């Protein structure tokens, strides 16, 4: 049993690491097709990573440990989150530690590491990007916390596995006002956290408009590969978490190999579908004025607050 549990964790992490660049490839393909372009192959992000990993590592003069530590830290924190959160299975050796606050803190650590690296370069763009990224992060993380709190209320635990299992046994919860509000708030927070439209434009070359990309401008070669992989993994993990929380069906609750295999397939399908839907939606969105972003995030925070309130009153103690 423990062997299969460990296998589930390994499968989750492997799926996220291997699948993240492919997800980006799928999203770019969807966008290209909708815009009437042929688009690059789905495996292009992997080819880019391979190319970058073969290059020589270069660090700008005057940068310190913050710059060097950021890329591995970003990937490592995301990999730990990928191991912790219930994506494939709710019963893994680490599922009891899959605490919401820990997960948000790990994500925050990755964000802060990259922002510090941006500051460490001492360039105007790095500092500008770091400042913007922290502004966004400061507004996003409370939203994620609150939204998942709302979902955790019926379960009475901040353990993500428990919340997902609860949702699986009592699907009405997911469709309750609290559940829907929380899902909406979480979706907006995920967009902001992963630097997608309408908060940030991942495809832009305009340095002055960048949020996340500006902090990563000075990275090159293997470091850049890690930062890109880390960013792609975050998107995958957060979309997977969103899928598990709002539509948990298919996730393995037992430790049989068959359930595990099925769960892997279902997760892949769900994340690919969410990613494709996001890419399709992004085609029709435009980027908000930077000063409107806090309004959007405040709106999603409000949804999360409403979700908590609704959850508190409607579960009726």
């Amino acid at each position, binding site marked *: 049993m423990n062997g299969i549990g460990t296998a589930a964790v390994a499968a989750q992490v492997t799926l996220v690491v291997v699948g993240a660049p492919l997800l980006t490839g799928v999203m770019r393909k969807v966008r290209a097709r909708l815009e009437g372009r042929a688009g690059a192959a789905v495996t292009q992000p992997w080819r880019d990573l391979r190319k970058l990993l073969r290059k020589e590592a270069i660090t700008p003069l005057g940068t310190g440990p913050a710059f060097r530590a950021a890329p591995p830290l970003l990937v490592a924190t995301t990999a730990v989150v990928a191991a912790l959160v219930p994506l494939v299975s709710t019963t893994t050796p680490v599922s009891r530690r899959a605490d919401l606050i820990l997960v948000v803190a790990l994500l925050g650590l990755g964000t802060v590491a990259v922002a510090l690296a941006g500051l460490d370069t001492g360039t105007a763009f790095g500092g*500008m990007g770091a400042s913007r990224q922290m502004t966004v992060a400061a507004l996003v993380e409370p939203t994620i916390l609150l939204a998942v709190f709302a979902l955790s209320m019926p379960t009475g635990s901040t353990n993500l596995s428990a919340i997902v299992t609860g949702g699986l046994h009592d699907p009405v919860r997911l469709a309750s006002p609290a559940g829907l509000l929380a899902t909406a708030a979480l979706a907006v927070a995920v967009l902001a956290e992963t630097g997608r439209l*309408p908060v940030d434009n991942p495809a832009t070359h*305009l340095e002055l408009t960048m949020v996340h990309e500006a902090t990563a401008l000075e990275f090159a070669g293997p470091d850049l590969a890690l930062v890109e992989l880390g960013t792609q993994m975050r998107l995958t993990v957060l979309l997977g978490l969103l899928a598990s929380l709002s539509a948990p069906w298919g996730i393995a609750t037992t430790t049989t190999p068959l359930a595990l295999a099925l769960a892997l397939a279902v997760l892949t399908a769900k994340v690919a579908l969410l990613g494709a839907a996001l890419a399709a939606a992004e085609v029709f*969105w*435009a*980027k908000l004025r930077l*000063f*409107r972003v806090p309004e959007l995030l405040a709106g999603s925070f409000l949804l999360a607050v409403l979700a908590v309130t609704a959850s508190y009153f409607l579960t009726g103690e």
Partner: protein
Amino acid sequence: MRTRTVHDLDPDELPGRAADLLTAGHRLALVAAHHDGGPAPAGRAVRVVYLFVSGPPDTRTELHVRLDAKAPEIPSLAHLSFPAGRFEREMRDLHGIVPLDHPLPHRLVRHFHWPRGWYPMHPDAGPPPPFAEPEGPYPFPEVEGEGVYEIPVGPVHAGLIEPGHFRFSVVGETIIKLKARLWFVHKGVEKLFEGRTPEQGLPLAERVSGDTTVGHALAYCLAVEEATGTPVPEEARRARALLLELERLHNHVADLGALCNDVGHGILHARAQHVREQLLRLNHEVTGHRLLRGGVLLGGAELREAPGPARMRALGGEIRDLVTLALGHTTVRDRFTGTARLGPAAARDLGCLGYVARASGLASDARAGHPFHDLGDALTVPVHTAGDVLARFLVRAEEADVSLGLIDRLADGLAPGRTVVDLLPGYAPTAGAGIVEGWRGTLTTRVELGVDGRLTRVKVADPSFFNWPALPVALADTIVPDFPLTNKSFNLSYAGNDL
């Protein structure tokens, strides 16, 4: 009817006459310096020509001022006209003519590495020397205060754009001051014209700024034709007007899409690119070149084919759809509205031209003021007063619409083929000026021909030269992430600006 007058003045008479002309509603279109009489000290003189224009009716007044060749100095007109001040700085950097009492005596065109005392337009300049001791430091003004920091951008940018250095002084995200330092692309175009025959000069004129092929070629041809007194047949003038509108159309469509792209709305950019590609292919069919080279000829024009009305109607429909979709998108509209306002007073004082001026309430258009072909009532000049990115977007959209109407009107019954008359031979040095409403704005070219019929001096004034100073003015109190959008809404040329 065109009125052209030339006045020879003494340097001290210049400010008075210039002030009179400016008060009478004239605009300074161009200032060109000339080194007459070759390198020998005898008979050598420096002559500065100020071209003032107004229209309609098409009026052109030239003030010629002769200066001492050994130490050329000229009273500054900077206190009368902002563009004059910039022309004077350009003249100082390229010719070594010193404007007296100039309020802003910094270098303008002069690249940092040009050696001290080397003036590329001077007859003794010779081939470009290696980098040497620069002409003193030229620091950026420092903005001081709590929390002010600087963002240096460029001259090498992440995208495929021309080189320019921008120094932002910023508090938080708000731009306090922007200093744009351009002038990295001096190619010596005006020097290259010297000594060419008018025919040899045309390919060069077409290449002054790649996106304004017709505009620059046409202004050059009009100038040469005015100098030689060559009348151009009606059929050719019509073909030229058509080519000018085709150029306006493909550039405006590209800009409409690019503005959407800069707010992250990529789908409309893709759509605009699709329309632009069709327009470029149409250009290829019309002239044999996607950017319309070879269409405007000295003494005439050549069309391989006239654009068909059904095709233009279909393209027009697509362009209108594009504009409707962009303006109907809440976020896109919100990003455009109120961003980087350029007030009418500022636009007038800076001497802005083209869509930048028309988006700030100035209804200047050389097609009406200095017509080379009567467009009749098909020409309307769209004007907006808000002066923001939205206004510049709307002016472009409406101009594209007017251009479609004009193309329809001009192409109707226009037979393809070559309509060219030979230039009339000249026996004395002559000069002429061409004024054209290029897609970016009014551009002026003045040529002088020697006794042998060769070009002795060609001066090109692109609208970008007038509009660049407006960009920092419009950006005051705009936020940093809106700079690329604003820059795109101005879409000024570096190549046409720095010849």
